[in-house]
């Protein structure tokens, strides 16, 4: 018998789009919730159309981005500019436990789908609104994407080479915001489970980024000091860097955090310049003279592959890992052994490899059960089976572009 998924029986009505919101509902979907994505051809989810990095895509049902961010979800097409579509969305909210959205603050209210309206229909609904800087405050209408969230929240400032320009951060920032939203929804659902009470959650993407660098704010509130860009350096550890390997584009990271690890590094490198020099005699001196130290370590890595460096140092108990570029990461031995990449059959694109669930739960596992839906793929199930609409009515609503 198949194992139960932890969120089996929980239904989520999902108005999110782009990357951050869909990551939040993806997490719930991988954990077994039934997630119904409401979308429309009138205003397609832009992850069906384009990527900031990869450019325009072949078509709305041929987006590897949409696929990986919407696994396990169902798609229903409702054109919310039509009042009848809003009524249908309300009927779906009434049979859902959670509603999620990441439109600009105020849009759901104008559509008649705001928290107060939905609460009137379903008093114990849990609703998440995720926005750039939060749904309250003077700048609530300001918009953004992952790179601007990282810039506003402080993480871009502390990312980059010492003395260099800040480095933009990309899509993973959206997914961090989404993970934060998923955690908040899970906590609210747990409270609902215990008390029967729903609630509203207002999430700020910029604040979600700031929460992941809290220690940098403590430096400011304690010392009035602004943490600057450190590149690959550490405040105290040395060596702590990114070193070039034999092949031109290959790099390896090495970090030494204790005397024991330093001794092991020296044993593996077997270089007397490390063991006989006062400048490298203790942790403090090594940090003070890290440039000279890096030169010696770099000479050693330059004659080896990243894999060789990793294996020889790790077998001596020193933290050394290759820097992966995209293609090499997919071939990594750990990725292979843990089966992190899973093949999913997609009706329009064929077999696609995607990252599997990020949690191994021994008794109620998360799982990929289905591809990211084609647009409107589940209209029959959602509107017919869940809401009991007849085929004739659905056909009429398609003609009227309510289902669109």
């Amino acid at each position, binding site marked *: 018998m198949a194992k139960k998924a*932890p969120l089996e029986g929980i239904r989520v009505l999902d108005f999110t789009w782009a990357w951050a919101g869909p990551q939040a509902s993806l997490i719930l979907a991988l954990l077994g919730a039934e997630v119904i994505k409401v979308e429309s051809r009138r205003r397609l989810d*832009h992850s069906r159309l384009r990527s900031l990095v*990869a*450019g*325009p895509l072949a078509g709305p049902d041929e987006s*590897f981005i949409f696929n990986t961010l919407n696994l396990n979800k169902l798609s229903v097409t409702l054109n919310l500019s039509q009042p009848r579509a809003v009524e249908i969305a309300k009927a779906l909210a009434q049979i859902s436990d959670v509603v999620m959205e990441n439109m600009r603050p105020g849009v759901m209210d104008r559509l008649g789908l705001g928290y107060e309206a939905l609460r009137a229909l379903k008093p114990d609904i849990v609703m998440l609104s995720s926005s750039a800087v939060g749904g309250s405050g003077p700048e609530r209408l300001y*918009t953004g994407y992952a*790179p601007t969230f990282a810039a506003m*929240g*402080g993480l*871009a400032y502390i*990312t980059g080479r010492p003395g260099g320009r800040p*480095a933009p951060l990309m*899509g993973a920032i959206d997914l*961090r915001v989404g*993970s934060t939203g998923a*955690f*908040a929804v899970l*906590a*609210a659902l747990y*409270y609902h489970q*215990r008390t029967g009470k729903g*609630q509203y*959650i207002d*999430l*700020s*993407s910029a*604040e979600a980024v*700031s*929460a*992941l660098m809290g220690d940098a*704010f*403590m*430096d*400011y*509130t*304690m*010392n009035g000091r*602004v*943490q600057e860009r450190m590149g*690959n350096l550490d405040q105290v550890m040395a060596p*702590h860097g*990114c070193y070039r390997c034999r092949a031109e584009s290959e790099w390896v*990271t090495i970090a030494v955090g204790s005397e024991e690890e330093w001794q092991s590094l020296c044993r593996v490198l077997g270089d007397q310049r490390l063991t006989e020099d006062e400048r490298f005699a203790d942790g403090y001196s090594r940090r003070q003279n890290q440039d000279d130290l890096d030169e010696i370590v770099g000479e050693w890595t330059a004659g080896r592959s990243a894999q060789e460096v990793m294996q020889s140092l*790790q077998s001596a108990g020193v*933290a050394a*890992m290759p*820097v992966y*570029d995209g293609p090499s990461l*997919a071939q*990594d031995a*750990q990725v292979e*052994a843990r089966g992190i990449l899973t093949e999913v059959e997609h009706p329009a694109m064929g077999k696609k*490899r*995607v*990252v599997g669930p*990020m949690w*191994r739960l021994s*008794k*109620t596992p998360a799982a990929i059960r289905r591809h990211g839906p084609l647009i409107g793929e589940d209209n029959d199930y959602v509107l017919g089976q869940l809401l009991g609409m007849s085929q004739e009515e659905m056909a009429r609503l398609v003609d009227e572009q309510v289902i669109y």
Partner: protein
Amino acid sequence: MTRQETTERALEGIRVLEYCDMVAGPYCGKLLADLGAEVIKVEEPPAGDRARRRGPFPNDIPHPEKSGLFLYVNTNKLGVTLNVRTATGRQIFRRLAQEVDVLIEDRPPGQMKAWGFDYEELSALNRQLIMASLTPFGQSGPYRDYRCYTLNLHHCSGHSTQFFIAKYLEPGHEPLPPGGYVGEYDGGLNTAIAIVAALFGRIAIGEGQQIDISKHETLLGLERVDVSRFADSSGASARIGMPVGGLMECKDGYVILIMPQDHQWKGLVEAMGNPEWAQREEYATELSRTQHTDEIQPRVAEWVSQFEKEELYHLAQSHNVPLAPVRSPADVFHWQQPQQRGFFAEIEHPQAGRLSYPTVSYKFSETPWRAERAAPLLGEHNEEVYCRRLSYSPQDLARLAAAGIV
């Protein structure tokens, strides 16, 4: 009492034992504690969590009770000391594990088993126990026992500039990681998600379970879009060109401008005062703009350079243009938006004093965040936990301390 002090919190009633160090595991414990779970943090005497020895410290003077890192990731917890390298210490640990719903641990794989604390043994004492293990590479695979600091983690999990934004990589320079401990915080957040999921699982199946979290997998998951793109390497197409915008320099720092949609470009043209050069038909759509980035970018950059970053932010946003200043931690702290939302809150700590802390990015209407207590002093709640809950007498506690067990 104010209303806020009387409201319930979302995870009230959940009891958690945290046996973790530094950032990732403690951040997981903090996320649960901040929402009302009772988290008992176990630290090894005499020095405790390594984060106590990592800065920032007030005036850079190291002090185990004043690390800003430790203070931030350990709010709202109880703290006890326990030396599990002693037989009595291990016995006490087992008793603690019997009393809780959740155990979070981050020891190297195999270490807990060696002490007699693996899931099989602990679940025999407490069928309801959820045990979450959070390690760099998880509990299996060839890298299981590998050491991995934050630097290594970021670069081997797809979060290096080398991974997909090579275009930002200046030729000849080394790849760069994201700043701070972000990948560690990610691991903590991801574990917290799994723990609440397992609380639901427990309702469904009537018992606890084991959770294996790998930080490496957590970070791969956060780059799931680009990992998929490269996994099916045919998808790794190069862009036709760079879009207009990105990181741009202004008078007092940098801004980031991202405007894939055509209406956003129109907004920018308006904000620039409808200059003649921007009216060309080829600039009207995203695709054609990208083919003319070389012409457009210097013009926009020149315009941007005349402003201060906050001034430009408000101007651009008033035209619906997604542009943001690159804010330093100080800029974020003084920014009106999080200030008015109450994102920073003061917490009083007996040794570090009254300081502002970042709180949570999610505002709950029914169960709001609140600071119940600052991070625990080393062993602050030994008496509370060992005497009042496990019924050791004060004399026992004194003997345990003398024997170096607590």
